[in-house]
């Protein structure tokens, strides 16, 4: 089982990221859960969302405290919240940042983990015209860890954003290409 924690800010679509990933995994015949941090959300405030993916029935019904993967949608969050808290030894951090993954390892104080980084905000601004990085960051995640195939996920992206499906998928593919992993 892989447990993934998304960090975003209210309104950036972290919950949507978690849901799209779970839907793609379920489509492939796997078991998956996607859920928000339960409670009230405020636009702009730090939020969490979670996805579990497994080949077997998932019997866990609690939050994710020791994720295998952490994805940070907003670059400002790294300073605001302990994004690597509980991250498993040798886990993966996917960051929205201009800075390369090697530098981040030192900054995060976790030499044991794998880091992937991509300038998701620039991609989102160029392709979508808004700094919404949820779909972009899924491209980065899949480059670093191929949890699901690209095609079914793109199908769910198109379904979720029918009016801007082409733009979202282009941004998603660009992130997949441009993500650096170390």
């Amino acid at each position, binding site marked *: 089982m892989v447990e993934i924690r998304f960090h975003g800010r209210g309104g950036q679509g972290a919950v949507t990221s978690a849901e799209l990933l779970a839907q793609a*995994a379920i489509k492939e015949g796997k078991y*998956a859960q*996607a859920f*928000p941090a*339960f409670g009230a959300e405020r636009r702009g405030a730090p939020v969490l969302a979670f996805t579990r993916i497994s080949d077997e029935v998932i*019997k*866990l019904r*609690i939050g994710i405290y020791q994720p295998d993967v952490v994805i940070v949608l907003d670059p400002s969050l790294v300073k605001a919240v302990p994004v690597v808290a509980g991250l498993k030894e040798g886990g993966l951090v996917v960051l929205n940042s201009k800075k390369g993954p090697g530098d981040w390892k030192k900054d995060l104080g976790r030499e044991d983990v794998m880091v992937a980084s991509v300038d998701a905000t620039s991609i989102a601004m160029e392709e979508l015209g808004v700094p919404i990085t949820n779909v972009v960051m899924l491209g980065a995640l899949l480059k670093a860890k191929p949890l699901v195939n690209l095609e079914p996920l793109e199908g769910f992206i198109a379904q979720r954003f029918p009016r801007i499906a082409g733009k979202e998928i282009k941004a998603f593919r660009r992130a997949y290409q441009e993500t650096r992993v170390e």
Partner: protein
Amino acid sequence: MAKRTGIEVSIAIAEAARQADVDVVSAYPITPQTHIVEHLAQLVADGDLDANYITVESEHTAMSACVGASAAGARVFTSTSSQGLALMNEIVYLASSLRTPVVMALANRALSGPISIWNDHSDVMNERDTGWICIFANNGQEAYDLTLMAFRIGEDKRVMLPVMINFDGFILTHVIEPIYMFDDDEIADFIPPYEPVIYLDTDNPITMGPVGVPDIYTEAKKQQEVAIRESRSVIDEVFDEFAGRYGRRYRAVETYKAEDAEIVLLAQGSVIEAAEAAVDVLRDQGKKVGAVELRLWRPFPFDDLREVLCGTSIKQVVVLDRCISFGGPIGPVLSEVRSALYLEKDKPMVVGVVAGLGGRDIHLEEYIEMFRIGEECLRTGKDAGEEPELVKIVGLRE
């Protein structure tokens, strides 16, 4: 053919109501049930469900509208949580007394105060004696399936009682997970149109809900008690028919590795799956443990429970309550389980614990701790430890 779909549990429950082709929905939005009624409102507004969606100013009125619509012969659905159910209480009791088969999806949430929007079972336990058929689902699939079956059970001419389907708020309502969703045609066949026996009709006027003077009230209550007890055979029939059609078998009392177990954890709702995971861990260590799920809460499955617990390998039951009966016997589930076993000769000891109040996660280690409490009681031969009435909360911060 049912299609395996990644869908939010709330949406699946709303889709069950749509597939049952409900005539009237009346509800007031409250967290964590909101997505269910939002989706139904959308379906009605888009013309995808031919129903009256009655918007109201409170849950008290929502349930009043439901009872009125059901009395007029409509198929009726509502959904609520926590304070919403508490506010409905007066009319919840009327729904069963008037024999109106309203179906309610109850997203279980803690009662205030302090204000909590998170999950436990204090809302449903507060309604325990209102005369509704009350069933627990422990995952999204079960919540969907049981919502469908609720219409068949409640509206059966031999039953005519409201049905409450319980599922844990947030823990289930807000989760996307794989659910086998049926085609509309399959459900149209399983749930034919509702044919009310007695209903309000201006051409043939009758009175429903008049004063019950002392000369008649006792008999009316006895009839109601007989009705809910006799609903049990219909519940089993519907469970059987569902299993025959779709292959998923539901039972009033479910067991997991209990056949040769010495200690079992008994619970309701989504905690059961996690309890099963704890059973697997302990079984790997050679411990004879199992889990028992009290799926049917009303009518209480006395015989089923005794069959599982009495005269078997089980020596110790640990009952997990998600609610405190303040100043009483720890929790309502413990109380009822002990009561059900009282007259039995060959019965296990029963100890109660409370956990998961107001949305606190219950970790795997804490389920294991519950089994350890059971082991301790069994070892010392003391039914509920030194202080049998003391509420034992697992996961309490000291």
